[in-house]
C-alpha cells in the first residue's frame, strides 16, 4: 500500500531535482517557503475532498464555498464588528452545515453526489455574487484581528503557518483514517456499501461524516484564503479550486470508485501539483501553459498507476490459483 506513495515521492524528488539543476533558484529559501505556503493552503481542503472520494462520492462545491464563506467571514469581521474568534467559529460552522446538508441529501434522499455538489457550486457562487452585488470585499482599515492574521498567514522559524497547520491536520487525519474505527468504516463503505450494511455499519452516518469533515476543512481553508488574498472578489475567488483538490486526491491514490486512498498520498499529490505550478515559473515556461502541464502530468500519472494496478490484479489472480491448489493438495493429503 505504501508503494504507491513512495513512487509519488520519488517522482516529486526527480522533478524537483531536474528543476533545481536547470534553475538553482528553485531551492532558494524564498521559493521553498512560498511553495510550502501554497502546499499548506491547497493541501488542507484536499484532505477533506479525499475523504469524500474514499466513500465513492465527490465534492464539487469547495471553490464556491470559499467565496461564500470568505464573504461571510469578512462581513462579520468588518461590517458587523464581530470579534475574530466568533467570526472564525461562524465561518467554520458554516462549512460544517453545508457539508452536513450535502451528506444528508446524498445518504437520506439518495441523490447523486455529483449532482448535489454541482448544484452547491452554482448556488453558493451565485449567492456570494448577489450578496455583494459582485463587488470585491476587503479588510479596509479596521483592526483587532492581528492575532488571527498572524495565526493564519504568519511564519514561525520562517515556516509558513499554513504549512504547519497542514502537517498537524494531516497527522491527525492519518490516525483517524488509518487507525480509527471511523476510518475503517469509511474504506468499507467505499469498497462495498452493501457488505458494510450487512455487517451493521451505519453507512449513512459514515458517509455524512465524510462530507461534514470536508465542509469543516473547507471552512477553515476559506479563512486561510481570505488572509492569503487579502480580499474576496466573489466571481473569481476560489474558482476551480475543487479541481485542484480532486487532482491531488487522484494523484495521491484515491480511486474515484471509492474505497482507496491515504492521507500521505493526498498530501504528496498536493505537493506534486504545487511543484508543477512552481516549475512553470522557475523554468520560464509561459504561465498560460500552467493548466496544460498539470493536465499532462496527471494523465500520465494515472495511466502509469493503472498499468501497475493491472499487474497487481494479475498477481492476485495467480496467488489465488496457487492458494486453491495448495488447499486441494492438503485436503487430498488429508483424505489419503
Amino acid at each position, binding site marked *: 500500500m505504501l508503494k504507491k506513495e513512495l513512487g509519488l515521492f520519488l517522482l516529486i524528488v526527480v522533478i524537483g531535482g531536474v528543476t533545481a539543476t536547470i534553475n538553482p533558484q528553485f531551492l532558494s529559501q524564498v521559493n521553498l517557503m512560498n511553495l510550502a505556503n501554497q502546499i499548506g493552503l491547497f493541501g488542507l481542503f484536499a484532505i477533506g475532498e479525499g475523504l469524500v472520494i474514499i466513500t465513492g462520492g465527490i465534492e464539487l462545491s469547495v471553490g464556491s464555498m470559499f467565496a461564500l464563506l470568505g464573504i461571510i467571514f469578512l462581513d462579520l469581521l468588518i461590517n458587523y464588528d464581530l470579534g475574530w474568534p466568533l467570526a472564525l467559529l461562524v465561518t467554520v460552522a458554516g462549512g460544517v452545515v453545508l457539508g452536513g446538508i450535502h451528506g444528508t441529501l446524498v445518504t437520506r434522499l439518495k441523490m447523486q453526489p455529483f449532482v448535489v455538489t454541482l448544484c452547491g457550486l452554482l448556488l453558493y457562487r451565485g449567492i456570494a455574487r448577489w450578496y455583494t452585488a459582485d463587488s470585491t470585499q476587503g479588510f479596509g482599515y479596521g483592526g483587532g484581528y492581528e492575532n488571527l492574521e498572524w495565526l493564519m498567514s504568519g511564519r514561525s522559524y520562517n515556516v509558513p503557518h499554513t504549512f504547519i497547520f497542514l502537517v498537524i491536520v494531516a497527522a491527525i487525519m492519518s490516525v483517524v483514517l488509518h487507525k480509527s474505527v471511523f476510518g475503517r468504516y469509511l*474504506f468499507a463503505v467505499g469498497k462495498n456499501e452493501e457488505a458494510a*450494511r450487512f455487517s451493521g455499519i*451505519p453507512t449513512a452516518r459514515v458517509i455524512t461524516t465524510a462530507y461534514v469533515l470536508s465542509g469543516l476543512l473547507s471552512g477553515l481553508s476559506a479563512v486561510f484564503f481570505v488572509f492569503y488574498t487579502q480580499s474576496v472578489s466573489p466571481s473569481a475567488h476560489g474558482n476551480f479550486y475543487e479541481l485542484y483538490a480532486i487532482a491531488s486526491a487522484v494523484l495521491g491514490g484515491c480511486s474515484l470508485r471509492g474505497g482507496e486512498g491515504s492521507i500521505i498520498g493526498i498530501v504528496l499529490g498536493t505537493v506534486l501539483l504545487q511543484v508543477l505550478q512552481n516549475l512553470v515559473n522557475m523554468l520560464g515556461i509561459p504561465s498560460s501553459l500552467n493548466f496544460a502541464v498539470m493536465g499532462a502530468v496527471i494523465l500520465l500519472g494515472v495511466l502509469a498507476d493503472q498499468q501497475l494496478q493491472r499487474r497487481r490484479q494479475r498477481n492476485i489472480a495467480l496467488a489465488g490459483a496457487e492458494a486453491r491448489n495448495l488447499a486441494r493438495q492438503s485436503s487430498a493429503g488429508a483424505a489419503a
Partner: protein
Amino acid sequence: MAETLLELRGIIKTYPGVTALDGVSLSVGKAEILGLIGENGAGKSTLMKILGGVVAPTAGVIVVDGTEFPTLTVKEATKAGIAFVHQELNLFENLDVAANVFIGREPRRGGILNLVDEATMHARVAPLLTRLGVDFGPGDSVETLSIAQRQMVEIAKALSLDARIIIMDEPTSSLTLTETERLLGVIAELRADGVSVIYISHRLAEVRDCCDRVVVLRDGKRVGELAKAEISHAAMIRLMIGRDLKSIYIQPKTVPQNAGLDVKELVTSAFPDRAVSLSVRFGEILGLAGLIGSGRTSLAETVFGVQPPVAGGITLNGTPIRVNTARDAIAEGIYLIPEDRKRCGLLLDMPIVENISLADLDSYAPMMLVDGGREHKVAEEQRRSLSIKAPSVDTKAITLSGGNQQKVVLGKWLSMRPKAIIFDEPTRGIDVGAKSEIYALMRALADRGVAILMISSDMEEVIGVSDRIAVMHEGRISGFLDRKDFSEHNVLMLAVGHTGQEDVAAHA
C-alpha cells in the same frame, strides 16, 4: 406426435466436481407444448442454456431438422428457430417496444447516415402485437409496461425471429392469475400456428393444463416422461422425487430449549399481503425450504434488519425486540450469512483479518483506535478453529475459494456472541469437503445453544441437516415438518402450495 423438430441425444454437461446433466435425451415435435419439470438444481436451466447456445455440452448431440450439431452457438440456435423468454426479462426499459423487438438488427435507412428506420420497425411489430392480442402498441415505452406485458414483448421478439420453438423458463412466476390465464391462451394460439413451446414451471397445475407431454429431470438425469393422458399432480411429484439421500444428519448433543427466536406475523416488503410466523428454538436447526422466489431471503433480510418490516414483530428469548437496521439485529446477537457472499458478505479487496473484525470493530477499539494486535489474534483463532485455508490472515478475501470465503463470513459472526444465526444457502458454490465442514459447524453451534435458521434449496441439505423443516410457498409458511415426517415428497408438496397430504393420497 407429429414430425420431430428438435432432438437432444445423450447430453452430458460436467463442471469441475459436478455433473449437471447426465445423458439427457429429449425431443420436441412440431406444434407441441413440452413441459419440463424437476426440483431446483435438477438441470432444467442448464439444458435450456445448451439449447440456446449459451453453454456447450460436454458430450451428446443436438439434432435440428435432421442435421447433427455437437454444440450450438447462439447464432445457430437463433437460425434454427429457438428463442428464449427469460425468467428475468432481458429488455431495455429505456427503449420502446419496437426497438426492443428489433434490438441489434434494426432496419436501416439513409445510406451512409445509417439511421434507424422507425417507420418500418413499427409497421413490422404492429401485426405481431395484434396476433398476441395485447393492449399496447409498438411505440409504448417498455418502462410503462407490466411484467406480463413485457413477457408479451419477449414473445413478440421471438416471433419476429421466426421462432419455431420458444423456451419459457418460469414464465408465470410473477404473474397474477388472470395474466397467467392470458399467457396460457397465447401459448395455445402459438401451438395452433405451428409453434412449439418448451414450458418450464414449478406450478404443476399449469403444466397439467397446458402441456401435451411432460419430461421430468432429477439430479441431471431424465427420470420419466408422461403423455397427455398420464399427466397428473401425483404422477409428476412421484417422478420428481425419489432419489437416494445420503444420510448426513448429525445427532444433536443437547435437547433444544423452549425459548428461541420467534417471528410473529412478520410482513415483508416482497409480499406485503402475507404474514409469516415461525420460531427457531435455541439449540435446533430449523430448515427453511421452498421454491426460489417463495420469499425466504426476504424473510431472512427482514429479520436481520436490512429490509424494513411492513408489519409484525420479532421476539428473542421471550423479549420483543426492535430491529430496524442490521446494527440493531447484530446488537441482539442475530446474525445473517447472506446468500450472495461476494456482494453482501465480504469486502473482497480487504484482508481476512479486517473482514472478521468488521462487524465488531468497536470492541477492538476502546480508545477509538483499532487495536491491530488483538484483531490479528482473534482472526488467527478463527482461522485455526474454522481451518480457513489461507497463507495468513492478511491474505485478501478475493483470493480464497468459495468454501474458505464462506468460513471468513462465518468467522466474523463466531468471533462475536451469536444467539441466532440465519444461514441463507450456506453451501451454494462450495465443494463437498467444505460442505460437510459447514454442516458440522452448524451442529456445533446449535449444541452450544444457538438458534439456527437454514434457508436451503438443496433437498439433500434440508432433509439431511435440519431438526425441523418449515416450508414457504409464495410468501407464507405452507407447513412445518418434524424429523419423522421428513421426505422429499412431503417437502415438495408443501413447496408447491399444498397444505395437507390428503390430496396426494387421493391421487395416488
